[in-house]
Structure formats: C-alpha cells, structure tokens
C-alpha cells in the first residue's frame, strides 16, 4: 500500500515536471511580480577575490527593488558559486536555466568558465549578457547570438599598447611577461597583431608565470638581463606590484606598460609604493575610487553613498566594486528599455540596441553602445601615466 502511494507521488512529480517544461514559452523567469536573474562567480577557491562582484550585484538589485523595481516587478537575483571550476560552472548554469528557470544569465565571471557554457546557453537560447571576461571572443554575434561581452577586450588593449610603444620607442628592445592563461595570452596576441613579423626582433624576451606562483622575482631578473628598455606586463595586481617592487630593488627602470587589470591604485600602486611606480603607462575606462581627481565627482559620490548604505563593510578601494556598479547599471538600462516585454528575445534585442548610455563611473567622454552587429558595449580606452599620486590621462580616447 505504501509503495503505491510513493509511486503515485513520484508519478505526480514527473507529471508536474512535464507540465512545467511545456509552460516555458519565450517568457521565462518573469511574472507580473518578479524578474529572475541568474549569476555565477567564484565565492570559494583561489579566485574568490572576484566574489565581490556577486556581492555588489546583490546589493545593487536590492536597491533597485527598494526604489520600486522595474516595470512594477521585483528582481529576484540568484547568484551561485562555481569556485572558478568550469565543470561546476556548467552544473550551476544548468541549475539556473533548468531548475530555477531564470530569465537570463548576467555577468558570469571568467574565460574558461564562460567557454564551458557558451554552446549550451546559446543552444538553449538564454541571453548570456555582459560576461565578466575581456577575452576577445565574446562579441561573436553571428555564431553566438545570445552572448554579449562588456569590457574592452584585452587584445584590443594590447594593440593600443603596441601602437604606443611603436610610436614612442621605434627602436625599442622590449620584453613581455604574461599570465599563462587566456587573459595573458590575449596580450601576446595583441602585440603580435601590431608587430607582425617584427615581433620576435623587438620582443627579445617573453616570459610567463602561473597564477599560483609565489613570486615573479626570477622573471624580473630574466627580463632585466635581456637588455630590454621597454617592459609590457599582462599581470594581475599581485604580480604587477611585485614587478614594480623588484625592478626598483634591482635598479632597473624600463618604460613599463601595464595591463589595465592592474590599474587599481589600491591594489597595485599603494602596496608597491607610489614613488616606485612613477612613469608607468596603462589604460583605463573606469574611474579609480582612490584617485584624488574624482573625489568630488557626482557619480563617485553617488557610488560611495550606495556602498555606505548597502555594502557598509565593503572595501571602497577595491576596483572590482566600481566595475560591478558599472555593469549592473548597463543591465538596469537594458531592462528599462524592455518596457513591459520581458521575453528572452526582447531582452536580447534591447541588449543589442543600447543607445550611447553614459554609465556611472566611466571616464569622461566614454559611453556604452551596442547594435545588432556590434556586441561590444564598451570599446574605448584612454592611456594614462602614473605621476606622483594620481593617474594622469593623456592622448585621445581611443576606439570610441
């Protein structure tokens, strides 16, 4: 008798599942009262420093709800941990899409992690918006029409550096150190794009490091030894800071061109020592929260107010929070553009039709825009040089 009830129960469950999946037309995860958004980032493991993105988004959407929501609907923001493990990312994505039935996936973090779900999410026709990775391949609207990038690509950034070095130091002997993964490799490719056949002639030494290495001191010594007078570094803040420190310690002063991933004053310059960083060239598209130049900027004040109220224990020197605020703002703008139609098709359509939005915390003169054939909301970068205690921007805005 008990067995029959159990089987009946199971049967009912199966039936309910079938009915649920038939319901899934193109409006998924959205009802008259809520919009479900899915998000994945590493909250554990050794990439967990990027977990602040999820923390920021959760607070941001809470504020949106406090201010009335979107089109009368509250945002239900579901953020899951993948520990930067692509296998786990696949699992969490499937959970968000198939079990939680979210409307779309927003700002998942990491290149290998997003690569793992790239095909799946496009086959399921779920908007895969503003991915948190600047690898080059996320603007491929032809083959992956449901995936959209956000930040300017690393490769483009490296090309900008290549052109700068070519113009400033036409007879340079250069060296490159890059992190041995997708992020670092993009810089290698970008520089190779600019120098072509001359790359090996100009770049006399190319070294790598793993993100699990303790120090890169040995690489710095190797680079100095090569006799180069230009050094390009494609590193995360920890290693950039070490490189700045070590080059100073061994008395080597090349022209140092640094990836903008390490452009954060608090994460890189302050630990290394501002006086040792004099003359470093990098690029940016965001305002640095510790830069005295933006102390009284309106958008910076608004952001600080947001942090104080919604993330009081948040580290306001952490540029990840600034990044997160910007990308969440573009998400909000997209949702507002949807009006009352929150079908997945329309969400994607609106994301591909963002008309020149001046997002908060972007550098002056920059804005975000997309078209159905341009899936890169942010394209512009500006070069900047470290001078005493701030980044001095110079030159035109490139790539706008």
């Amino acid at each position, binding site marked *: 008798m008990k067995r029959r009830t159990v089987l009946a129960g*199971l049967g009912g*469950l*199966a039936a309910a*599942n079938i009915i649920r999946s038939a319901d899934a037309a193109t409006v998924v995860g959205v009802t008259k009262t809520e919009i479900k958004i899915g998000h994945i980032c590493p*909250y*554990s*493991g*050794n990439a*967990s420093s990027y977990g602040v993105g*999820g*923390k920021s988004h959760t607070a941001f959407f809470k504020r949106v709800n406090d201010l009335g929501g979107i089109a009368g609907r509250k945002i239900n923001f579901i*953020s*899951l*941990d993948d*520990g*930067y*493990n*692509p*296998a*786990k990312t*696949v*699992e969490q994505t*499937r*959970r968000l*899409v*198939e*079990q939680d039935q979210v409307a779309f996936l927003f700002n998942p973090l990491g290149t*290998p*992690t997003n*690569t*793992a779900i*790239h*095909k*799946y999410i496009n086959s399921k026709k779920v908007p895969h918006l503003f991915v948190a990775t600047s690898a080059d391949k996320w603007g491929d609207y032809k083959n992956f029409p449901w995936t959209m990038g956000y930040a300017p690509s690393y490769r483009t950034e490296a090309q900008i550096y290549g052109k700068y070095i070519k113009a400033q130091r036409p007879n340079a002997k250069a060296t490159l150190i890059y992190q*041995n*993964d*997708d992020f670092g*490799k993009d810089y290698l490719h970008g520089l190779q794009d600019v120098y072509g056949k001359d790359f090996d002639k100009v770049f006399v030494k190319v070294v790598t490091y*793993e993100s*699990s290495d303790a120090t890169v001191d040995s690489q710095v010594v190797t680079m100095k030894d090569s006799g180069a007078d230009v050094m390009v570094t494609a590193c995360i803040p920890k290693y950039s800071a070490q490189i700045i420190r070590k080059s100073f310690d061994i008395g080597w002063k090349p022209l140092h061109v640094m990836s903008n991933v390490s452009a954060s004053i608090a994460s890189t310059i302050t630990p290394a020592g501002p006086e040792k960083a004099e003359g470093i060239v990098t690029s940016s598209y965001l305002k640095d929260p510790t830069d005295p130049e933006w102390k009284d900027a309106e958008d910076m004040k608004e952001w600080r107010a947001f942090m104080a109220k919604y993330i009081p224990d948040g580290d306001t020197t952490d540029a990840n929070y600034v990044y997160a605020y910007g990308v969440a703002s573009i998400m909000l703008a997209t949702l507002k553009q949807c009006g009352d139609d929150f079908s997945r098709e329309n969400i994607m359509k609106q994301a591909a039709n963002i008309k020149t939005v001046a997002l908060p915390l972007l550098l002056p003169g920059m804005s975000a825009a997309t078209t159905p054939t341009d899936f890169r909301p942010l394209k512009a970068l500006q070069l900047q040089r470290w001078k005493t205690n701030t980044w001095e921007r110079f030159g035109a805005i490139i790539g706008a």
Partner: protein
Amino acid sequence: MTENMSRLLRLVFIAAALLVPLFFASGYQLFQLTLVVAYALSVLGKNLVTGFGGQVSLGQGAFYAVGAYTAAILMEHFDVPYWATIPVAAITTGIVGLALGLPALRLGGLYLALVTFAMAVSVPQLLKYKLFENWTGGVQGIVLLKPDAPFGLSLDPDQWLYLFTFAVGAALFLAASNLVRSRIGLAMMAIRDQPLAAEAMGIELARYKTLTFGVGALFAGVGGALGAIAVGFVSPDSFTIALSLTLFVGMVVGGAASISGAIYGAIFIVFMPNIAEEISKAVPGAIFGLILILFMFFAPGGIASLVAAQMRRLRLTR
C-alpha cells in the same frame, strides 16, 4: 539466507539508483548524478590505492585529467565516437599510472605523497605547454558535443548519458569488488598492514604496489573521460590541484577501505558544496571545511564504516 538477502537488497538499490532518476529526475539532476558516477569511479581508484593498498596518493586529479583529455582529443581531432574513447582512456591512463608508479613507489609514505602532489600541480602547466597546444587546445580548452541516444531510443541526451555512465560505472565497480576479494586484493591489504611480513611471505611488493597504482589510475581515467563527456568541456583550469584535493576529501569522507565508500564520497563532493553555499554565501569554503572536520570527528572511518556498523547492529538485533 542473510547473505542472499543482502545481495538482493543491493541489487534492488542498484536498480533503483538507475531507474528512478532516469525517469523522474530533471536534466539538471541527471547531469549531477552522472558527475557523481564519474567522481565515484575516481574515488574508487583512490580507495584501491590508499584504502586497500595503503599508498598515499594525492595525484588522482592528474589521472582524471589524462582520461578527460584523452577522450576530448580523440573526439575532437580524430572523430572517435564517445563510447570508444572510454576503453582508450582507460588503457592510456593505466599505462601512465604504471609508468609513474614504477619510480614513485620506491619512495614511501610522505615522499609518495609529495610526488603525487607534484604530479597534480604540474598538470595544468603541461596542458598549456606550447608543444602540446595543438592537441590540448592550450588555455582555451576543448569543447565537446553531447552524444544522442543510439538506436533511436526515446531518451534525451541527459538520460542516455546517465544510463551509459551508470552502466560503465557498475561494470567497473563490480570489477573492483572482485579484485578486492581476490588474491590480488588480499596481497594489497597484506602489503598495507604488514609490509615486512607480506614480503617475507613471498609477495612481491614492487609488483603489487605498481599494479595497484596502475589500476587506481585506470579508474580515475575512466571517471575523467565520462566526466568530460558529461560536462562537454575540458580546460587546464578544470584540473587544478583543487580537483585532487576534492577527490581526496571524497575518499576520506566516504570511507577509504571500502567499495561503497566511493559512492558516498562522490555524493558528498558533488552535493555538499551546494549545501555549504546555502548556509553561507560569504564563506562557502569555510563552511565546507567545517563540515569536513565534523565528518572526521563523527565518522573517522568514513560514511561507509558508519553504514557498516549500522548494518551489523541490525543483523545482530534481528
């Protein structure tokens, strides 16, 4: 009588484990369970090497990676059908295991731990290396297609993959069970408990240790291949030292000197992180660590030993 009943009970469990999810679980849940089987095979390999063989190996993740990449490379570059990659992955990983086992096993205890740890740490670097990039896809990894059910069976890819993985898993678990009960298994346990006495009795230490290591690697390789097909993607970042440590946790929590322990362990490592995340979004890793320590306190011999103790108690009271 009781022996037959317990065997019947086991068969019922196995059948239920296969059929219930197949027809009632969602695609996502089937995916998770498929991963459980893949990890269970790897943990089983570890149990054979460490639990039954007494050799500390921290490098099971490396063999998992070898199996996964073997399957991926065969499918991507040679158009080999997914089911054919399994035996190739098994043999390849087994050979790698034997080759690495030969020198590694001259060292014992801690030194073996270091060498296997080193293997696991080196794997991502090797996978990214320029020379192998054309095969391994370098840092970008390789994307795989999920297979469809054959012979026009009315199962969707998730269901079919679960069935396939389960079948392979069951076969290997049966093989392991037989191995442990065989002369080889007894030799392994003798070496684990009393190596000097075992040697004095004529058991060739080097041969059995190497063999065990190779078998353990083989299991992990099959697990890796199955896992790669299920996830549909391999990249160096999927196979860091974290994977080896995770498999180690699976072994310890499930019960090292037990066959069924591998299953409990795999269930733990797939589902516990999600539970830890529910408990705390801010520090899921710490919660997982805490739960792990608690498991060590209350089930130092693993879940399998708890279950065995319960079963023994039930039989006694009946």
